[in-house]
């Protein structure tokens, strides 16, 4: 148990410059109490991965990260037998009794641990981050089920390896596909959306030192305004921070239409979006 209350979660995360809202700190608190994995979902760039990193920093644990991609399999996620070493072992010992060799080559010495097994076997408690889980195929998801519900891995030749310490598990998803019910059932669900203007202003203040309060407020409001447009890709929090840094580097005190038009490309990455935002924000005169 790492946290006393949701408030202490919030304080701890704030101390490493991660500003959680009520929902985030409550869910992290629950995950800690109930020993359940957190499934974090939300648009790109709202701090899903950052949450796991910050948790590692707050609790002083190591972060073990499994980056998911299409085609990820057991051998890269869980464990793999070190077959080269096994081969050498067999060849170097031709005269030996086969039963003995077999015993030997399927022992822990010949096991290559991959992130998931590593997290389970770690002597020190860790934070396990399974990033972008929606990129793997549905079939591969099943690999995770045993870990997520029981914190254990079964290896046919060795038996079941149970976690010695309880890891904090964070899964992130960009929701490009529906995850399986079985996976969702085992997790606490946390949807992180873009922060509201007030919280975004706080985030800016924490992440961009030297930014004046006036400018931070203005940046947050402009970004909120841009997000309300129907865009291909709305600006993420990290892009907001980039924009604030850009403004700071240009020593701009006050955002006006001209400056916004000139620096829009920092916030938006598609030409259609830039044109649309420029049209909406820099030329229209509200009645």
């Amino acid at each position: 148990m790492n946290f006393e209350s949701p408030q202490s979660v919030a304080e701890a995360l704030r101390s490493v410059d991660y500003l959680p809202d009520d929902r985030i700190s409550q869910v992290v608190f629950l995950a800690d109490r109930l020993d359940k994995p957190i499934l974090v979902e939300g648009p790109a760039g709202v701090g899903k991965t950052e949450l796991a990193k910050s948790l590692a920093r707050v609790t002083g644990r190591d972060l073990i990260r499994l980056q998911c991609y299409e085609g990820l399999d057991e051998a890269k996620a869980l464990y793999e037998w070190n077959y080269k070493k096994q081969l050498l072992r067999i060849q170097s010992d031709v005269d030996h009794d086969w039963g003995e060799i077999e015993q030997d080559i399927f022992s822990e010495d010949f096991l290559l641990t991959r992130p998931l097994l590593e997290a389970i076997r770690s002597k020190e408690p860790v934070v396990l981050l399974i990033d972008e889980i929606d990129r793997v195929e549905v079939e591969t998801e099943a690999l995770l089920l045993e870990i997520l519900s029981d914190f254990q891995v079964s290896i046919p030749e060795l038996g079941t390896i149970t976690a010695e310490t309880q890891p904090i598990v964070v899964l992130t998803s960009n929701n490009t596909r529906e995850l399986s019910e079985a996976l969702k059932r085992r997790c606490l669900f946390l949807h992180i959306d873009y922060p509201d203007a007030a919280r975004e202003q706080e985030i800016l203040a924490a992440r961009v030192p030297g930014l004046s309060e006036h400018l931070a407020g203005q940046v947050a409001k402009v970004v909120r305004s841009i997000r309300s447009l129907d865009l291909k890709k709305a600006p993420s929090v990290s892009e907001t921070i980039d924009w604030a840094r850009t403004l700071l580097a240009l020593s701009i005190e006050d955002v006006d239409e001209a400056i916004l038009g000139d620096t829009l490309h920092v916030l938006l990455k598609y030409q259609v979006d830039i044109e649309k935002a420029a049209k909406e924000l820099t030329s229209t005169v509200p009645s």
Partner: protein
Amino acid sequence: MVGIITGFIDELRAAGVPVSMVEAIDGMRAVEVVDIGDRVALRETLRATLIKNLRHERAFDTAFDTYFATVPNVEREASEEPGSSQLPGADRDGSDEQPPFDLEQLLDSLLEALAGMDEAAIRRGARTAVDQLAGMEPGRPVGGTYYLYRTLRRLDLKDLEERLIEALMNDEAMSDLDRRLMREEVEERIERLREEIEDEIRRRLVADRGRDAVARTLRRPLVEDVDLMHATTKDLQEMEAAIGPLTRKLAARLARRRRRREGRLDFRRTMRKSLATGGVPADPQFRHPRPHRPEVWLLCDISGSMATFSRFTLQFTHAMSTHFSKLRSFAFVDTIDEVSDFFGPGVDFGSALRRITTEAEVVWLDGHSDYGNSLESFLNRYGKQLTPRTTVIITGDARNNYRPPRDRVLADIAGAARAVVWLNPEPQAYWDTGDSAMSHYSAHCTSVHEVRTLRQLEQFIEELTLPGSRTLQNL
């Protein structure tokens, strides 16, 4: 408390949210470790354990606000005078002694509260407004919207918004950008007030009529159950978010083929596998064959009777165009035109829709659906480009205005293509009634599906993969 939570879970299930047994137990266990007097904590705890899909959040919020309407909001109400958070109705007993109600005075105090964003004062204002303006009658079986309407009519939020803008705008000469930002800020605050009033009314309804009854009146269909023919703009917006993952799934399903041993020998994997058999390569491994690139042609009826549905199908088309490099789309009313070029990378949906309605030549005679002519002109103009790899998806109600269906044409199309799938947004019971020519066409389709809701669309995509289904794979 346990009783309320089980009631709450029942309500979620009744609204269509799938809450499994395990999740219900998790919810109960989780509630044990939180402060149940704290509304935010309780809400987020139940949300994290019971709701696993963003699409269900709206249903969750509605149900939660009803079932836990009386749980105070600890943090936010801390600054209020004690007693003010007690059950509604109680503070109305003393209304005789209060000075007579003055609407102007209420508006002024609300204005001040909104300008300073004083949450407690906004809450007090909302409470007074409901007290004085809603005219709530205990036991009267009307929904919350009726009282909301009565309150807002007198309060006139639009006017309040203007006044607030004026009050805040006076300071200095502002640029257009600042003006816009200010306006949005004000809109958000007014929205806060609106929510507060809605909350207050709901609280009183719950106190009066009980949780279950109020929850029933507030229940709305989930996004996936909204009838596509009658969806509102707001529904369509929510659907848009759900379409992305669906099209990806469809892309994957269409690309899938029966597993065959194809491709070259994978030496590395064969060697590794051979270790299990003591170095004897008993189980040769092969490289995966290159993924199959499906060709999809979409034919959408965009006539007047299909207005909402076609907006949805075009949205779907738009989302699909990011997954299929070989997607071609056609729109028709009484003749057909290709609209593929209107979509494509980097085009936003709104402008694509505008171009289709203005530039595409889909009307030949009178602008009433004519499937026969549309199909015939499709075959004449594009038929030669159909290949055995092409899957043709037709969306429409098959309401032909009693014109000749010319279903032989569809048979020719089906003969040239890999498969023809028809998605009909009408309930199956209505097919072949009136001017619907569905059965003329369905005879020539590989499969026909009723797709009235997002859920049915999902089902259709799901079924495409069922082992042994003859839909696409055998063709």
